[in-house]
């Protein structure tokens, strides 16, 4: 702290500390705490706030266990997000490995640019592109009909499959960059050495590349799972009443059910799920938070 004061002087230090305190208190920490506090209170009309009924309760949390539909949606959100994460990892690994270790140096800038550009494009627009592809009269049905794979157009929109397909597309870039960064730092000589010592292709990946890429895999999985579980745009556009996502249930508590306390409880459950996934991923890949910050 004295170092800060010495470097910036009293006035600037004051401004800096005030700004950081305002950001972290008013925009980050207090809202989260308020949401948690709110989630343990009953939903009451203003006249009865502070009255005898205004006590902490677990009722907003037990709702999830008693409401079979909500519980089913919650569980589906978990496995579907895990599936999205696994598929993106499988799809991205070969690309990341190629770009990081195999691709000729001349071609690399262009290839990376081709990855960066879709990354910048609005998530909603990328979802919308799949809305058009999956539509009943859309090009996917036309293609499958033309190839004779199906004999009647299929309803891809409004179901879980369409939502999962869309999520893989939208979040794939959050997997490919962490993987690329991790594999890129692997010394090519290590692969050469393994090969010279007689290791096969599969063994090189399993014993040399994958262990080295662990922090990247952890970051990629954490980001993808968090984005998938917390996604609203993709299920709202590509899903339907039969394929609701947990975030849509939360939204309904706020803006249709008019029960903010209940919505806050569900939101906190979602947050706990994501934190749980982060901790599990860190433990599974045996990396610390510090490795991720790199």
């Amino acid at each position: 702290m004295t170092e800060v004061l010495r470097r910036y002087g009293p006035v600037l230090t004051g401004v800096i500390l005030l700004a950081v305190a305002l950001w972290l208190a008013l925009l980050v920490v207090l809202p989260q705490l308020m949401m948690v506090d709110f989630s343990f209170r009953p939903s009451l009309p203003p006249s009865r706030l502070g009255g005898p009924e205004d006590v902490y309760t677990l009722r907003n949390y037990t709702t999830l266990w008693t409401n079979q539909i909500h519980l089913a949606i919650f569980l589906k959100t978990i496995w579907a997000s895990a599936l999205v994460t696994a598929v993106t990892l499988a799809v991205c690994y070969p690309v990341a490995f190629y770009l990081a270790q195999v691709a000729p140096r001349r071609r690399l800038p262009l290839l990376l640019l081709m990855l960066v550009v879709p990354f910048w494009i609005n998530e909603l627009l990328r979802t919308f592109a799949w809305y058009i592809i999956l539509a009943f009269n859309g090009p996917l049905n036309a293609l499958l009909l033309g190839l004779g794979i199906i004999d009647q157009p299929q309803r891809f929109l409004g179901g879980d499959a369409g939502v999962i397909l869309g999520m893989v597309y939208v979040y794939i870039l959050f997997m490919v960059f962490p993987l690329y960064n991790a594999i890129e730092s692997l010394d090519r000589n290590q692969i050469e050495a393994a090969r010279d010592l007689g290791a096969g292709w599969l063994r090189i990946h399993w014993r040399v590349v994958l262990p080295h890429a662990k922090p990247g895999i952890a970051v990629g999985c954490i980001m993808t799972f968090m984005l998938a579980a917390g996604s609203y745009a993709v299920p709202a556009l590509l899903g339907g009443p039969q394929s609701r996502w947990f975030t849509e249930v939360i939204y309904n508590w706020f803006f249709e059910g008019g029960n903010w306390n209940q919505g806050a409880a569900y939101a906190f459950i979602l947050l706990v799920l994501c934190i749980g996934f982060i901790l599990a991923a860190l433990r599974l890949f045996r990396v610390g938070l510090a490795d991720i910050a790199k």
Partner: protein
Amino acid sequence: MSADRFRRILTGFYLVVFFGYLFLPLAVMAAATFNTSRFPTVTPWLGFTLSWFSALWADQRMWSALGTSLIVGAGVIALAVPLGLAAALLLDRLHSRSKTFLYAVMVSPLLTPGVIVGISTLVFWREWFGVTGGIFLTVVAQSSYIAAYAMLLFSARLQRFDTALEEAALDLGATHGQVFRRITLPYLTPAILSAALLAFLQSFENYNTTLFVRGLDTTLTVYIASKVRTGLTPAVNALSLILIGLTILGAVAYEILRRREARRQAGSASLAA
């Protein structure tokens, strides 16, 4: 040797499929803009038209949503960039455990689902200050995590900063204000520009957080989503095409600047060595 070649062909094939997968959906969406079909599609192709652009141009609600997005974006730049700058300046001079802890708190909004950022902001500001959803709350909610992106950009640049410059200026009698204005800030200018650009883009495309705090205001992204669900015509594709075109221009310009800057850094480093 033939196994090697087989693997190379397989890799090439995989890359073509992968990049096709990335770009083909966007191409289909763009192509549907020029189809006369009332529903945006490329199958069947009914005929070429530019009329969806004029339909978009005549859409009053689109213009007002665009206006809202621009106001919110400007607000986020004004709030998130200074906050991120202050945070990076503080972190840069801290050592030890407090730095790790502060850093974790600062990046936590990036690991929080966007809907939760929106919900916590909505609840907190209504309960504490009686503020309800609208442009102000949208700016606040978006800034809470965009400031973290700005902080990461500033921190990356500060890591390469030669603090001897500041010390020399202080030794020669400059005030702290002068040092900040004449040395630190000019050094950070490129990062300020990229942070502002990143903040604007993040704000412009945000949907999950905005949805909860927007009140009765509609940003362009929210507007597009509502059009897709009710009243979808290829005018939405025309808008998407324009936005994607602008994004690609911005992304390419940003990348070129970034790489030129990286080369300059590498050049001066090799000169120093």
